[in-house]
Every structure is written in C-alpha cells, then in structure tokens.
C-alpha cells in the first residue's frame, strides 16, 4: 500500500483558477478582478459577537445541526425574505459554508453511479464534488443567447431528463445571471416531469439588482424534491467564518446530518455566534453593500458597452461575464495580466458554456475598478 491518490481523486484535475492564482501571486501591484468574495469585511457587530463569544469561553462543539438560536433565526429570516418555510428542528442544517452542504447532499442523497445534471458555467466545486461521491455528471451548458439562464431547451438538449438530480446556482457565479420566478417555473416543470431532485445553491440570493430572488422551493410541488443551500459568506461578507446552511425535507436533512455528524460534527462555534448577530443586527449592512455592488455593476457594464465588449446585463452576485475579444480567453487573460497587471478569470475555468468569456468580479473598490477598466480599454484597443 502506498499513499497514492485514489482513482476518483486522481481523475479530478486541479482547478483552472489555480494557474491564474499562481501567475498573479508572482506579480506586484496587480488589480485583481478575479476574486470570488466580497471586498468588504464582515459587519463589525458580527465580528464583535464572535470576539465576545470567545471572551466568554464559548468554544465547545454545538449541536450537530447547529445552535438552535441560529437555526430559529435562519428559519424566520428565510420565511420573511424568500417565503421559504422550514422547521428549524428537522428541516435545517447549519454547515461549514454552503460548499459543505452541497458535498453532504451529493454524498447523502445520491448513490454512486447516479446522474447529476450540473448547470454550467458554475462554481468550481460541483463537478469535483460529484466525482468524489462517485456520481456521474451530466453537463448542462447554458448559453449566452439565453443570458446564461437555465431553460427547458438546454435541459432537454443535454440529456438532463435521464439524470437523478439537478444542481444549479442563481444568481450565478461566474456569469452574474439571475432567474425570475416565471423562468424558474419552466425548470421546475421539467424536474417534476422527469422526477429530478433539485439542489438549489442560493448563496447569492440577497445580491440581486433588477428583480427579487425567487427560490424554486416556493413553486408548486418543488419543496418536497428540493434542498436549498445558502450561507453568510456573500451577502454578509463573512467568507472566512465558513458558515452556511441547507434546508429541505426532513428525510433529506436527516441523511445529510448523518454524514455531517461523522465528518464535521458541527459548524464552527465562533462563526455561529457571529451569524446570530448578523441576522439580528446587520441586515442594514447587507443593504449598504448591495447598493455599492449595484453602482459598480452599472459602472462596469457601462464601460464594457463603451469599449464595444458584448456583455449581457448581469443582474446578480458581483460578476459580469463579457465575451472575450480574442478567440482564446485563456490567452487573453494571461496577456492582460502580463501587460496591464489586471487579473480576470477565463470562463472556461467554470465548465461547459463558459468558453470565450471572462469572469469580471466587481467586488473591488470603485477607484481600482476604474483603473482596471481603463487598462482593459487600452489593452483591447
């Protein structure tokens, strides 16, 4: 026996983002539009709650599902804001980031050999997560002509009807695409007709700029086949706290908790204290940050328009996804970094359908954003 990687691990290539990270790390004074997290720090009240909990010596494990005070607040918040109704005792699990929740769902709710339809381009962990769970992936590439929304047409064309479950993220990383309630109805109907479970990653749900977020679990006949994932990382700018949650039917949450209790035991305790404070007293900070992102979004989209770069009006998260002016987006991103010291990530790093595009994160201060846009403009012309 040697310590060689297992086959299913060996079969997963390193993240396409890694190469750009290494290139960027070697250079000084770059402006990075390649960051997938807020540039704000967590709200001070949440940080202070974390400090206070430490001073009080609250450093033990919590219940597997998370502190009840936190689950109750999450349940009330999701009900008030998104009309989602989940029992904090049986239908809600606090996880170490939404990422852990998705991993739990893949392992606890799918069998090896099952098929998972993955709407792409998407966050980099879905496909590897499925592979680690022994699950077969069905690529569902969304299209620029649909503004990267999931449609019945792309689901049918990709063979998703044969899949056991569908995973997607809207508002989307990397495209910034959002879906309205009406658009989701079409997806919901497809999933009911073909009996697919749905894993809805709603981590960016609070960051929408054109219309309110609709959760697919609120549509008729969907709550019983959907697990919703969310967390504190994006809206509350609490990425490093590593705190998320999953909501779904009792049987699904119980199964996910069975894996969670043996692997994670409980989500970070200090982070749970911060999250309670975030929900109690930091919602105004979320509004302030959202207003800032919206200004930056307007700025970036206007500049792309003036430069003649095609970019659909991304309406959520903090990403824009313009078409790359060169045929090879990887080559463009590398040249832009070398010559203008601006880091962006080529869309191909996010799976099928992302090719030929660039992910531009506007989670960066306006002054830097302006400089970066000037540099991109001079590079493109």
């Amino acid at each position, binding site marked *: 026996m040697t310590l060689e990687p297992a086959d299913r691990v060996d079969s997963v290539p390193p*993240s396409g983002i890694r190469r*750009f*990270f290494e290139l960027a790390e070697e250079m000084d004074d770059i402006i990075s539009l390649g960051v997938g997290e807020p540039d704000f720090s967590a709200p001070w009240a949440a940080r202070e709650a974390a400090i206070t909990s430490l001073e009080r010596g609250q450093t033990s494990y919590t219940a597997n599902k998370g502190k009840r005070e936190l689950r109750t607040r999450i349940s009330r918040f999701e009900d008030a804001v998104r009309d989602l109704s989940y029992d904090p005792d049986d239908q809600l699990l606090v996880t170490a980031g939404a990422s852990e929740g998705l991993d739990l769902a893949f392992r606890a709710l799918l069998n090896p050999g099952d098929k998972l339809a993955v709407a792409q381009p998407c966050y*980099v962990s879905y496909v590897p997560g499925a592979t680690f769970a022994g699950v077969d992936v069905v690529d569902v590439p969304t299209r620029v002509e649909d503004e990267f929304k999931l449609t019945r047409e792309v689901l049918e064309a990709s063979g998703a009807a044969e899949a056991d479950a569908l995973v997607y993220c809207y508002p989307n990383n990397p495209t910034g695409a959002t879906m309205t309630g009406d658009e989701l109805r079409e997806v919901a109907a497809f999933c009911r007709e073909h009996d697919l479970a749905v894993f809805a990653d709603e981590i960016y749900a609070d960051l929408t700029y054109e219309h309110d977020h609709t959760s697919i679990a609120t549509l008729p006949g969907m709550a019983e086949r959907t697990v919703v994932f969310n967390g504190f990382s994006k809206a509350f700018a609490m990425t490093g706290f590593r705190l998320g949650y999953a909501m779904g039917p009792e049987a699904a949450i119980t199964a996910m908790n069975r894996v969670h209790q043996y692997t994670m035991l409980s989500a970070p305790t200090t982070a749970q204290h911060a999250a309670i404070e975030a929900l109690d007293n930091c919602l105004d900070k979320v509004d302030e940050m959202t207003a800032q992102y919206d*200004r930056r979004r307007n700025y970036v989209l206007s500049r792309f328009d003036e430069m003649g770069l095609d970019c659909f009006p991304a309406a959520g998260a903090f990403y824009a996804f313009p078409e790359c002016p060169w045929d090879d987006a990887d080559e463009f991103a590398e040249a832009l970094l070398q010559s203008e010291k601006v880091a962006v990530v080529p869309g191909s790093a996010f799976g099928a359908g992302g090719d030929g595009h660039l992910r531009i994160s506007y989670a960066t201060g306006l002054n830097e954003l*302006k400089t970066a846009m000037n540099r991109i403009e001079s590079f493109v012309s």
Partner: protein
Amino acid sequence: MSSRRDILDLLGENARYTTEDLAHMTDFSESEVEDIVAELEDAGVITGYQAVVNWNALGTDGERVRATVELNVALDRETNYGDIADRIAKFPEVTSLRLVSGDYDFDLTVEGDSMREVSHFISDKVAPIPEITQTVTHYVMESYKEQGMNFDDHDDDDRLSVSP
C-alpha cells in the same frame, strides 16, 4: 432607479468623481448628472468641495494646530443664537461652528499655524464678544479620522488575488 440622493452619496464619498463616472454608476446620462449637480449647487445643498487632509502625514512642514472650543453664551432680548453665530463664523480661523445640546451652547473648531496663534485668536477675538460667558479650549493632540476618512487605514486587501 437612481435619485439625486445617489449623486450626493457618491460625491460625499469622493468629490473628484467625474460627471462621466457618476453617469456610469447611476441610471443618469452625463447631461442629467450635470443638471442635477448644478441644481444642488444653486440650491445651496452642495456648498463646496474640499480635500480631506491629514496634516500630520505631511511631516513638520504641514503642522497645523487645531482646537475645539466649547462656548457658553447668555442671550438677551435683542440677541439670539444666530446673531452670535454670525459674528463668530465670519473669522477665517473658525473652520466649523455648531449649536449643540448639553452642557454648553456652541462647539467651534479653530485652526492656526501655532498654539500661540490659536490662543490669541480665542482670547482676543472670541472671548471678548459680550454674550459669551465662558470658553473651554481643547487642543487636538492627534486626529485619527476626519469626515469619514480613517487616517490609519492602510486598506490592506488580504484576500487571495484570484479565487473561485
């Protein structure tokens, strides 16, 4: 939908945003931004644009002495707060003047090149005003934040330069 308030918020954040920048960040066109700013200036809502200066960062060359002064006044039938404020506000040494609630009436900020200059100004120009009954002067020893700008904020971005 953008509003005049958005323009004010943005200029409050950075008065050097150009008309073009403001148009890019809002739903307004450049000419609409120009009109709104002109209206706000004409109406006296925007009264000026100034740099926020950390004089200490300039070293000894830039040293400025600043004091906040608590003023108590006695009003009579002919004199109200506004009359007294008019007399004090006209001095260029006075950089801010506010009527406040609490133990004293006015809170003013005075700036000068030396402690001597500031002291003389208060004793020669402010204290002799007949309605003023008491002055308490506090010299500023260190400034950490002015007009929302944190002077010690190096704004280190400790995020990974590229992340998923």
